[in-house]
């Protein structure tokens, strides 16, 4: 693995700074009900089950995991679109969980979202100008009415759209340009944190690079923090300072990009990274790919102990009994595994 890393945006040296967002013990269970007249709760889909995360100013946290691991639910919780079952989300010192009315509305200004699908996330009957101005209408005190059009034009040039196109409709733009409209809308209220849920996965490779570069430029210019949710591990590696790997509603590994990618500690992270196709035919067959058996278990009925143990080649009796916590490992990253890194699961056999 390459050692000389030159990240496009230098990692902000703010480890000591107060986090913008502090998430503690966040849980979201969706109840499963049965019965026609009298509904009884028969279980719960544990979409997010105990997530702790701190977002520092100016950093990008990448969140990766397979579909169904809870990464999109996490995004919805952080922006207040879903009410958590338990836990706390503190935004620059203010508690978001349980807040309502004007208080919650004021907090939402600081956290905005960019959606995956640039086709369905923009209203086809609204002009680009109206779409970008909508957050300003919802929060009328952000920008005085007389200056709103000026602000919209400013935002459009900020994301690389021509301000002359302010009266066009979304369908008159390509996928990449639409995603720029979504980004301009997300930036309208000067948020401190932008949550990007799969923002480039619907785009072609050549356009994807344009949008990734734009997000990095915007972060450098505006100093905002990003939570970047994606299933594409190469994209996440490129844009993130820190990376969280999720499996069945939990973060199983959390650390700096270099730690997680160069020296993965959790077996799931290892398997995930080894499954990424290597874009170099000369290396074909030379990587040691770990092909995981089967599919992830249902989040409605997760395994006891470690949730990954049913697909893990290192699993021992202990893994079924004791749920591993997210502990500091030798790489500097935190991992939720009893046998992190190269630790053999059966020391007596390995020796």
């Amino acid at each position, binding site marked *: 693995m390459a050692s000389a890393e*030159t990240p496009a945006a230098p990692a902000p040296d703010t480890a000591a700074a107060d986090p913008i967002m502090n998430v503690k013990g966040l849980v979201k269970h969706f109840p499963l009900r049965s019965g026609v007249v009298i509904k009884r709760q028969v279980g719960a889909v544990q979409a997010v089950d105990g997530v702790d995360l701190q977002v520092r100013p100016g950093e990008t946290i990448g969140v990766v995991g397979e579909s169904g691991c809870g990464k999109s639910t996490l995004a919805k919780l952080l922006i207040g679109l879903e009410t958590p079952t338990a836990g706390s989300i503190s935004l620059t010192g203010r508690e978001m969980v349980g807040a309502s009315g004007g208080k919650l509305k004021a907090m939402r200004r600081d956290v905005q979202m960019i959606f995956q699908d640039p086709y369905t996330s923009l209203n086809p009957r609204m002009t680009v100008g109206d779409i970008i101005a909508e957050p300003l209408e919802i929060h009328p005190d952000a920008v005085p009415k007389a200056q709103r059009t000026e602000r919209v034009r400013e935002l459009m040039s900020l994301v690389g759209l021509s301000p002359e196109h302010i009266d066009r409709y979304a369908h008159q733009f390509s996928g990449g340009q639409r995603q720029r409209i979504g980004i301009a809308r997300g930036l309208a209220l000067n948020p401190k944190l932008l949550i990007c849920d799969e923002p480039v996965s619907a785009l072609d490779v050549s356009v994807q690079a344009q949008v990734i570069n734009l997000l990095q430029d915007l972060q450098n210019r505006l100093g905002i923090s990003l939570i970047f949710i994606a299933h594409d591990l190469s994209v996440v590696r490129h844009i993130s300072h820190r990376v969280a790997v999720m499996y069945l509603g939990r973060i199983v590994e959390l650390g700096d990009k270099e730690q997680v990618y160069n020296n993965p500690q959790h077996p799931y992270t290892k398997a995930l990274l080894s499954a*990424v*196709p290597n*874009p170099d*035919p000369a290396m074909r067959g030379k990587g040691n790919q770990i*092909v995981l058996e089967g599919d992830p278990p249902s989040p409605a009925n997760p395994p006891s102990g470690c949730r990954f143990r049913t697909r893990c080649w290192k699993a021992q009796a202990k893994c079924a009994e004791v749920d591993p916590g997210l502990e500091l490992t030798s790489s500097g990253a935190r991992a939720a595994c009893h046998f992190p890194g190269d630790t053999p699961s059966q020391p007596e056999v390995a020796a």
Partner: protein
Amino acid sequence: MFSQKTTSPVEEGKPEVDENQPLLQVRDLSVVFRTREGSAQAVNKVDLDLARGQTLAILGESGSGKSVTAQAIMGILDMPPAEITSGTIKFRGKDLLTMPEKERRLYRGQRISMVFQDALSALNPVYTVGEQIGELFTVHRGMSRKDAKKKSIELMDKVRIPGAAARVTDYPHQFSGGMRQRIMIAMAIALDPDIIIADEPTTALDVTVQAQVMELLAEMRRETGSGLILITHDLGVVAETADMISVMYAGRTVEHGPATKVFANPAHPYTLGLLESMPRLTGAGDRLYAIPGLPPSLLNLPSGCPFAARCPRAEDICRQDPPPPAVEIDGTRFSACHFAEEVVAHGVR
């Protein structure tokens, strides 16, 4: 494949072919879509070759014409609005485009089969997977339903669906995405075809499942000795599986050659741009190269090279002269660029 009750039985048995002729030879294929806004030139004078046991990847972005090419080979283009305006598609020397539909049906599924991107919409939701796999045998082989079910279980075992005998009566929605794609592969290999076309077979899947499905496809190809045409926009998947690559842009093949050569040393500025704009798992996290601009509209293609407007190497000749034909470079591959030799030697910037 879709409507079970309306499919009339096809004549039994595979069509006879001359094994000495090349497996698949596409020459000068052009497809136009007649739309209300005008004619869209989706595929423009495309040549392709596929040999037995070979994997050919057709790489391109949306709108590049890769899927339309595949559909033309499979014979499932919607005509109209599509119209094949020129070219031949020869399977073992026989032109599929000029033969009567009755004969063509013998090739579809038995000689050439297809794995679709979205297994959930390619499978019929109201029939069990067993009925859908078994249909291939009742229609093409005249088997009884009982025997067909037995064959279905065999095939599901072969693509490693756990508990095949019990799951044969399940409906598509009861399977996970990866398992559904395995069912699609089972149907594609059911009649021992000579060519399998896989159109974005793993795009909807997670990387861990993608690895399983690609591995299975490769194994099935090795086992049956068939040729595989892999349609994809994923450079990683191509690098791991393809022997030969055709890169398509705006309906044209811009570069064609052995995978190792194309990746190590691209001969077309578009291929080079694609490779550079892709984030990687290793190496420095420098700023990504982004190909500026957008692909041209197929309704209104420029008279010159379709990539000229986005190309850092473009000169007047690229914009004015008709698009250059693919020329052979270093004896192994083709590039449709006026400056191909130079791109191979020095890149574009």
